[in-house]
């Protein structure tokens, strides 16, 4: 039996007057490695913010683990790596350990202190991303790629069942991008974590994901990444604003 981790129904959203998302429908099942692609400004980050409750839903519905978003409380089941994660203040006095331990805040709840077991979880999350040796280093002193791995450890430390990553490979050099995808595949296949990976780079993610979603205001494609690969360039380019004009021109 498949279990719905996320379902979005008839979701539309606008900032002030500018419509950003229009009638989005999608669902993600347990065990999937879903890739969400779309050009810059297509509404990917906005969709994630709505899913995480960071923006208020205007029309439509979102369910997480079968629970309507308004009633959902088990936020520790969801790990999140923001697009802005590595734009934090480099001068902030915090160690790698302190940064990752922050990921336990919601799970532990108010008036709870970190116990031995929680501290062990922090080190485990760090070794999951190969950063255990850096635990006592200042986070601002690390390279962009190392910081990104620390932020993934922060998302993993609460043992989430569903991990959402918003353009995590931006700022990571190309050599490390492949290693990064291997790590995600391992989390998905060996640790059973359902993944939603957001990217504006169609090329590299289609080979890694089990499900592909193409977003540009609304979902233009949802299905097997291989079928997508076999689509014509014209079909693919429908997702991009500038070529959309050319397509429209063709038909008129």
């Amino acid at each position, binding site marked *: 039996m498949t279990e719905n981790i996320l379902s979005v129904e008839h979701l539309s959203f606008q900032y002030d007057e500018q419509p950003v998302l229009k009638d989005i429908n999608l669902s993600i099942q347990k065990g999937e490695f879903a890739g969400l692609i779309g050009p810059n400004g297509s509404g990917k980050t906005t969709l994630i913010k709505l899913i995480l409750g960071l923006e208020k839903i205007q029309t439509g519905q979102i369910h997480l683990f079968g629970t309507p978003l308004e009633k959902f409380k088990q936020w520790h089941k969801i790990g999140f790596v923001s697009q802005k994660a590595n734009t934090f203040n480099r001068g902030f006095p915090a160690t790698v350990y302190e940064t990752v331990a922050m990921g336990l805040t919601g799970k532990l709840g108010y008036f709870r202190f970190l116990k031995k077991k929680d501290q062990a979880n922090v080190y485990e999350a760090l070794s999951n991303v190969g950063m255990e040796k850096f635990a006592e280093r200042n986070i601002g*002193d690390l390279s962009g790629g190392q910081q990104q791995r620390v932020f993934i450890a922060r998302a993993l430390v609460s043992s989430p069942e569903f991990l959402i990553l918003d353009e995590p490979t931006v700022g990571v050099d190309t050599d490390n991008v492949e290693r990064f995808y291997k790590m995600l595949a391992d989390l998905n296949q060996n640790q059973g974590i359902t993944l939603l990976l957001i990217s504006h780079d169609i090329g590299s993610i289609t080979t890694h994901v089990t499900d592909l979603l193409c977003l540009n205001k609304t979902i233009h494609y949802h299905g097997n990444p291989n079928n997508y690969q076999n689509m014509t360039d014209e079909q693919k380019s429908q997702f991009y604003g500038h070529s959309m004009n050319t397509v429209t021109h063709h038909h008129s």
Partner: protein
Amino acid sequence: MIETFLEFPFLRNTLYTGLMIGFIAPLLGTFIVVRRLSFIADGLSHVTLSGVAFGLMMQKKFALLMISPFYTGIAFAVIGAIFIEYLRGIYKAFQEIAIPIILSVGVGLSVIFISLADGFNTNLFAYLFGSVAAVSRTDLYIILMISVIVVAIVVFFYKELFALAFDEEFARASGIRTKTIHILFIVLTALVISASIRIVGVLLVSALMTLPVAASIRISRSFKQAIFFSILFGEAAVLIGLISGYYLEIPPGGTIVMTEALILLGTIIFNKHIHFLKTRG
């Protein structure tokens, strides 16, 4: 030197008060500085001034002696803190505009209250620049109570306050009630400011919260270390500043803040030598 302070009860109260605010002001200050909210401390101190002026006016004009300027200062600071947050909510795109609004209203009200009270008196000077002789026993107990509340809340909400300071979006996505935590934090800041003006005065209170932190973050690798050194520098400055202020007959606000400035200068000059704290485990 310090014996003199312990000998005379009124100086003893001042010393204890100084040590308490030397602890809580840099403690909260560490969160304020890393969240880039130092301007809030400035805004709130001027609102506190208007509260103090209001209390002085009530005492002088209506001989309402139970309305101590200290209490009205606390009340105005807390109300001002909530009002700043309200304004920041309205002006989402220009949140810093809340501060000139609050600051000028604070000074404007102060001027009105002061002139209604028929002008300045020496009391006001003590509230502006601090005083070694201003702490009564009741005030000492109130400041002790404020200190206990501040330390307890920071200890119990440490992980939430830290998450909010480092990454507000992540804190919200973790299900933390960031708005509530933030309001709690701002009200604590108001309490610390109104407690601190007894010693350092309205004009220099934000320095007490930010200068020790400015020095400590230059040499700290972790957040806990940053808090530790901020408090250490804050306490050192209060001790040196209070004693030298007493003997030199200078309001302690000046001597404490100048001691802090010297400590900051020291960490800047010797940064290379103490940088090992930052990089080694």
